[in-house]
């Protein structure tokens, strides 16, 4: 299949769920032709509101996503969910258990819920989730929710592909030093203290507030991160959270920040694809020149060094770019 499977694209755009599911599978597997599929879908994207939800395991993300999806459905909006769970470092397998919490949306195909395994892929995952979001967007979903466990750099990359980022902080999740740590707490537009009926939630709200007060405000138009308390299990506070998300979406539109974020994301994405593809080309060149072992041999024998090896390997690339530079200067 050299070019995009037109039938699959047509079916997806016609609202067929199985075609959407199959496109996401191809994206995940990096199957033959998946890039053409994403390219073909691109023109149909740009209408979905993308919300990223992250937080530690057991913070209540899936239950909250279920309740959020229900609220959006009650307003007549359609919803796509991508829930990322970790994969085993040993077998590469995974148990994806987030669907279990989707009890409020049973039998409602307009909540399209997809579980994804991290597949141990560094960097590749944010590309795959980003492309899956695009498939849901092209399909016509009004709201797309990305749910991922907040544990590290990988999640930060994923969640940053969203327009609005919510970080779940369960009560009693450490002291104020935890709040000083870099990473996940820096990227939240909205902080959700879920399970707010548990002891310690007031203190957590206070600590979050203290942390947010230390943030530099960038000006009068800046978005001040909100703290919302919820009990997702009983739907308490969820209406307020939806309102906060709406406020943030409106702020994104009014200040031009939505466009700015999209531009930043796009630049980052082009760079990432460029890096991936260039390194693939470099690998090919390496194979063509006899493979890594030969180079290792000569470095280990102290005949050359890694820098010189790489310089030699990249020589043909340099030559080509120099040549086109020369052409421009004529």
């Amino acid at each position: 299949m050299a070019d995009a499977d037109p039938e699959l694209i047509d079916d997806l755009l016609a609202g067929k769920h199985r075609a959407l599911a199959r496109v996401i599978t191809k994206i995940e597997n990096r199957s033959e032709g998946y890039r053409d599929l994403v390219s073909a879908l691109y023109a149909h994207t740009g209408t979905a509101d993308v919300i990223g939800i992250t937080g530690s395991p057991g913070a209540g993300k899936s239950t909250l996503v279920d309740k959020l999806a229900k609220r959006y459905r009650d307003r007549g909006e359609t919803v796509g969910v991508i829930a990322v769970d970790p994969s085993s470092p040993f077998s590469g397998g995974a148990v994806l258990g987030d669907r279990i919490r989707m009890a409020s949306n049973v039998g409602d195909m307009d909540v399209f819920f997809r579980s994804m395994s991290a597949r141990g892929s560094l960097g590749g995952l944010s590309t795959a989730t980003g492309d899956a979001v695009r498939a849901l967007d092209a399909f016509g979903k009004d709201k797309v929710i990305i749910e991922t466990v907040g544990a590290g750099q990988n999640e930060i990359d994923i969640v940053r592909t969203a327009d609005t980022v919510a970080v779940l902080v369960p009560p009693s999740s450490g002291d104020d030093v935890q709040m000083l740590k870099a990473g996940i707490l820096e990227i939240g537009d909205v902080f959700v203290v879920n399970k707010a009926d548990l002891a310690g939630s007031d203190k957590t709200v206070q600590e979050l507030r203290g942390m947010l007060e230390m943030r530099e405000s960038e000006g009068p138009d800046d978005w001040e991160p909100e703290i919302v308390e919820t009990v997702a299990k009983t739907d308490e506070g969820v209406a307020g959270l939806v309102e906060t998300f709406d406020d943030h979406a409106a702020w994104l539109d009014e200040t031009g920040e939505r466009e700015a974020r999209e531009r930043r994301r796009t630049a980052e994405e082009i760079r990432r694809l460029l890096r991936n593809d260039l390194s693939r080309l470099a690998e090919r060149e390496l194979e063509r020149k006899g493979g890594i072992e030969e180079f290792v041999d000569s470095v280990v024998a102290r005949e050359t060094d890694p820098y010189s090896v790489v310089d030699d390997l990249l020589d043909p690339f340099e030559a080509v770019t120099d040549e086109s530079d020369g052409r421009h200067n004529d």
Partner: protein
Amino acid sequence: MSDSDRKIRCLVAKVGLDGHDRGAHVISRAFRDAGFEVIYSGLHKSPDEIVQAAVQEDVDVVGISILSGAHNTLVPKVMAGLEEYGALHDTLVLVGGIIPEEDRERLEDAGVDGIFGPGTPMEETIEFVRNNVKPR
């Protein structure tokens, strides 16, 4: 990625009213350790929910676990639902649990690809999945 080394995705589904999911948990974990991606449905699901999950998750395998004896009503409903979405021909459907000998033929006629009773060695089920996943 070639077809042979694609990630196998399985839905482990508890349909109907029985409240025992120890077996489903054991299977989920064994599949995970075999390198499969397992979507676990949770308890007390209706056939419709299983079909919805199977279609959205685009799984290669649906493993239905039933201990209640209601397999003759529930399994054909799942099969019909998969058929409705055009998903039956490339989905491997397995049934596990307590299935009396005299019911096996009927399930196989309904399109079930494999039936695994209590005490089936885990390796046997995993091998069966590996060897019978349908091409896509």
